[in-house]
Each structure stands twice: as C-alpha cells, then as structure tokens.
C-alpha cells in the first residue's frame, strides 16, 4: 500500500463519510443506518453547544473527579535511572503518569460514558446497552446508567466474566444486567456482536454506548472527543510543571480510546514522539496475540474498516491477551490511519513484559496499574533507560489494577 502524503494537520479527521483515509466508514446493516445518522445529527448539534459542554464539565469535575493528576513517577524514574547506570548509559528520562486510574470508577472509561449518557438523554432514549471486555467500560456504563436512571444491559464475553468477576459484581450492584456471551472465545469481539444484535432488535428506545473509539461513524469521532480531555489536560499540565512538551507519550491500545484520548491533542506537536502499545500476548509468531496493526491487515468488522487479525479467507481471528481490555482483534480506525501515515508508532508488548511492569509499578510506585496500562508502562521500562535525563515521557495510566489481581495471582501461581 502507498503511504499517504503527510497532511498539514493530523487532527482534521474524519471526513463527512466518517473516513480517516481508507479507514472508518459506516459498514452496518440498513436497520441501524437511520439510527447512526440520527446519532450523528445529535452529535453535531451538541459538540459545540456550550450548555452541553457546561453540563459535561460540571459532571467531570464533581462526579468523576477531573482533572486527573499528571504525576511525576519518581520511584519508577529512579529505578530506571539505576537500570540505565548499570548498563553504563548514565541516562533515564523523567517518567510521568497521567492518572486516569484516579477517576471515579477507576479508569478513563468514565470520560466517554458521561458524554454519551448526556447524548442519550438528549436523544430521548430509554435504555442503555454496552459491550465490555475487562469490565471497566461495563462498570462505567452501569455507573452513569444508575446516576441518570436508565436500565442498562452489558454484554460481556463468558471468558471475561470469569476472569473479571469483581467488575461483574460491581455492575450488578449498580443495577445493570450482565449478559454473558458464549460465542467465539467469549471475549470483547463476541460481546460487541451481541450488543449489535440487541441494538438491531431494539431500535426504538435503545442507545448503544460503545466503549472504545471504534465502530461505525460517528462513534470513533465522538468517543475520541470525549476522551481527548486526557490529552488536553496532560498537555497543559506538562507545560505548567515542566515548561515544555514531553519527548514521548505512550498509551496502550486495545480498541484504542485511552490512547487516542491522550494522543489526539499532541498529534500536531511534531516534536512529540507518540507510541501506541498493542497486546503482544505470547508473541507475534503465532496467533496468540492482539497486535492487529503489527500482524493484521485492513478489513471490515463492527461497522468500520481497520486493521484486523484475520485469515486469508477474511474470517476474523480471536486473538489472545492477558489483559481482557486489549483482547480484541481490531483497533479504532483512526489508529489505523495514524499507523499508515507514520505519525504514531505501534509496538507490541508481551504478556510477560506487562506482568513484570505491573509488579514493578506496584513495588516502586505503590500504584497497582491495570494490566492494560501495564503494557504501556512496560514499553517505558524498555526505552527510558536509553533516553537522556532531561527528556520527558508521559505514560497514560488508564486504569487501576484492582480488577486484575486474580489474573495476576493466577499467572504467578499464587492463590488468593
């Protein structure tokens, strides 16, 4: 494929058809088309509406706890400087964490859910459905549904229900109905299929609260815009705290909503190196990973064209990741476009590397990161020792890891 010409700005997409270059679009059944057009109309009305913005900002501040802190991870920085010295490099950049784990519900997912629930309310919808992988989006959806008095159904792969049981219980406490999906490997992809089937059946009153920056237009755009608060804050905070932009920013990419939220406000700061981390699982040689941009090909699934893990016949593969939130064989379309345009590098991190970073962060920072975020930290652990001491890296700590302690205990052969 030819590389597209470098645009004047990387922040103008999508176009009116919902395309980011060849990626994105509206590949959905006709039954859903009028709903998606209706959503787009409402989205266009509210996105520059000061009342909508004011309501969202108020909730973000007083309900979700924004702005989230930009925290200088001194313990991790010191540790990586020791590693650097031991290698004779004498460097080690300063590492900052964008603390999305401190948000209400424990991850960045609340940013998007608050925005979309206000949209659902404006559209007069009566019922919320959502898909979830790790359960973070399911919890955030159930939370805003409880707060605004909507009934909520969350589709969750049966495998994920088993490995994320604390979040399942949380959703139930919040009044949501969790429907386990047994098709396929019982992970996020299958949950999304089932949510789409629900939506196509209950078109009259149902709002589909998609959790990541993927799906048919306008979802990738609106989820990105609701999550961009991460990058907008981080950019202002680093300018205030360090007086300059970071050298590198890093975030984990499953569907890619925390990553696009951090990246988007930095896309036109050409001096900032941007790195997205894919789930390398047990390695890219086999099929046990979710590195769709490193090992997949463009295809069409769940309403958009994007990089997908698939076989030569165009059948979608299931993939694997230790982290339920990254266990998805595709990625949001804007990431695919950023990959092909060369603005963002996407690299894989293996299960084991993420697990190590999870433990390291817990020990040296006293912060238990989500396994998703641990992938991003693991890459920082790799590159920071070779950087100079006056350089700055921001890692998106997209969520807290309490939900993952069972998985980690299992991996380490411990019983809780």
């Amino acid at each position: 494929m030819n590389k597209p010409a470098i645009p004047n700005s990387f922040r103008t997409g999508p176009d009116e058809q919902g395309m980011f270059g060849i990626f994105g679009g509206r590949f959905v059944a006709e039954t859903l088309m009028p709903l998606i057009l209706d959503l787009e109309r409402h989205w266009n009305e509210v996105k520059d509406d000061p009342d909508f913005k004011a309501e969202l900002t108020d909730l973000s501040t007083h309900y979700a706890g924004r702005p989230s802190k930009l925290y200088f991870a001194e313990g991790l920085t010191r540790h990586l400087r020791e590693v650097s010295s031991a290698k004779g490099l004498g460097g080690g950049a300063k590492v900052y964490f964008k603390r999305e784990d401190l948000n209400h519900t424990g991850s960045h997912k609340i940013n998007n859910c608050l925005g979309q629930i206000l949209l659902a309310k404006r559209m007069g919808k009566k019922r919320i459905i959502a898909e979830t992988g790790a359960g973070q989006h399911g919890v955030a959806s159930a939370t805003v549904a409880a707060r605004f008095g909507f009934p909520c159904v969350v589709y969750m792969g049966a495998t994920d229900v088993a490995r994320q049981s604390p979040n399942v219980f949380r959703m139930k406490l919040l009044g949501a109905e969790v429907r386990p999906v047994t098709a396929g490997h019982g992970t996020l992809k299958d949950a999304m299929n089932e949510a789409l089937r629900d939506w196509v059946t209950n078109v009259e009153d149902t709002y589909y609260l998609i959790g990541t920056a993927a799906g048919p237009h306008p979802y990738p755009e609106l989820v990105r815009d609701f999550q961009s608060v991460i990058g907008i804050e981080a950019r202002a905070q680093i300018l205030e705290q360090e007086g300059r932009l970071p050298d590198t920013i890093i975030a984990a990419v499953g569907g890619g909503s925390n990553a696009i939220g951090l990246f988007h406000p930095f896309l036109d700061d050409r001096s900032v190196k941007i790195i997205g981390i894919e789930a390398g699982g047990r390695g890219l040689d086999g099929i046990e990973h979710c590195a769709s941009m490193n090992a997949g090909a463009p295809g069409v699934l769940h309403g958009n064209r994007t990089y997908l893990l698939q076989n030569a016949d165009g059948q979608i593969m299931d993939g694997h990741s230790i982290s339920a939130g990254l266990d998805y064989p595709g990625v949001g379309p804007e990431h695919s476009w950023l990959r092909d345009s060369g603005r963002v590098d996407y690299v894989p991190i293996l299960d084991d590397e993420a697990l190590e970073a999870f433990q390291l962060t817990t020990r040296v920072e006293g912060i238990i990161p989500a396994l998703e975020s641990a992938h991003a930290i693991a890459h920082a652990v790799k590159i920071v020792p070779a950087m100079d001491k006056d350089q700055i890296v921001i890692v998106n700590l997209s969520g807290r890891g309490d939900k993952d302690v069972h998985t980690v205990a299992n991996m380490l052969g411990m019983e809780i």
Partner: protein
Amino acid sequence: MTTRIDRRMAKLKAEGRPALVTYFMSGDPDYDIALSIMKALPKAGADIIEMGMPFSDPMADGPAIQAAGLRALKGGQTLVKTLKMASEFRAADDETPIVLMGYYNPIYIHGVDRFLTDALASGIDGLIVVDLPPEMDEELCIPALKAGINFIRLATPTTDDKRLPKVLQNTSGFVYYVSMTGITGSALADTGKVAAAVRRIKGHTDLPVCVGFGVKTAEQARIIGASADGVVVGTAIVNAVANVLGPKGEKTADPAEAVATLVSGLSQGVRAARLAAAE
C-alpha cells in the same frame, strides 16, 4: 441487460404467483452435503437460491444461522469453495438464479474486482451484503452493477419514506424487505404491517419486493406471499439441516431430503398465496 433474476421474476409475475426464495448456508455441514442441498432446492420448488457465505462474525444473524456458519467454517468452507459450489450447481442448472448473501470482509479480502470476475464465472446473479448500506456504494455495489451482477438491498422498518429513495437508488433484481427490526430467525412480525410496508415500498419502485426474516411455515409463506412478490425462508431451512445432525455434526438422516420436504411444503404455500388473495 437482464439477469436470471429479472427473467425468473418476470416469468413468475406472468404466472401470477410470488417467488419462493430459499436460503441455505454453503458448506454446512460440509461441502458435499451442502451441494446436495443446493441441488435439491429447485426440485422441491424453490425459485431463487440464496447462498449463505459463512462469516466468523455474522452481526445481523440469530443463533441458528450463526451456528450454521460456524459449522461450515469448521468444515473448511471458504469464499473460493462457495464460488466453486455455485459453478458446480450451475453446470447442471442454467436457469435458477443464485444470490450470494453474507458480509463484506471475505469479499474485501478476496479483492472486489477479482471477486466480481470469479462470481460471474461461477454463475452468480446477485449479491446481498448485509453490512454495505447505500452510504458505502462505492465499495462493491457500483462495481457489481457495472459487472452485470444485481445488488439487492435490504429495506427495513427503520427505512422511512425519506430514506427509501436512497436505499432503492442502486438496487436491482429485487428489494429484500426485512419484516422486522432484529436478527434472522426471530418471530414473524404482524403480517398486516408487513403488507402495508410492501405497499409503501412498491410506491417507490417497480422492482419486485421479497419479504424475509421470520417466515418459517407454508401458512406464513402463503400469507406473506399474498402481498409480496417473493417470500424468503432461511432459518427454517438451516434448522432443517441442524435437526438431522448428531452431537458431533454427523448426519442422522439425509439433510437434502429434510430440506426438500420443508421446501415442498413452503412451495405449496406460495403457490396458494394469490388464490387466497383473490378470495
């Protein structure tokens, strides 16, 4: 340029009866059995064959067709084999129209131009691609029409009068009216509403309007066929196959015969449709 679909629809119109459009899943449970089912369809009274192309993530399908697709994929079915099956069928039957129905990704991965060339060579007459609404016509619809293959669009209860012209614009062969909002295999909608919807669509187009989603019995086929130009049956046929498969997917009776029995009954239903309407 007329296609086998146009000719078949014109012939049935002259006979004064609706078409029986039968869906089966190619490759379910394996290639040979599926081919025997396909060959049995016209003999049992099917007028048009919809050939399901299995896909790993069939988002608009209910459990029955999902399971059939997975059986087919497990049995080694691919897009290439589906086209081969069509050409084997075509070698012995040059009349019965074949419509491929499925999702876009396997076609996209095969390559659109190559797919259209191969489909024409295999005797394919039309395409129904669930996840390609008119907004995405440049992808496949327009190239298919140029190649002489009908592109059959789904119209649904959510397709209002304002949107219908857009949906119908590049549709050819026939219009497939989805009787309900939902996935395949659900219960049949209120037949009175379906008849009204068919009249509404006919107000916008001269194309034949076939109705599907939820039709399972000869009696339902008769009632729907009274107002529609064709009746589509899918899940009931796929279930007839599943019912003669054992727990490990082995056949416990002849699937082609099971399908033929069902389709013969449905065929009597559509043949009685206009008599009933005339009463």
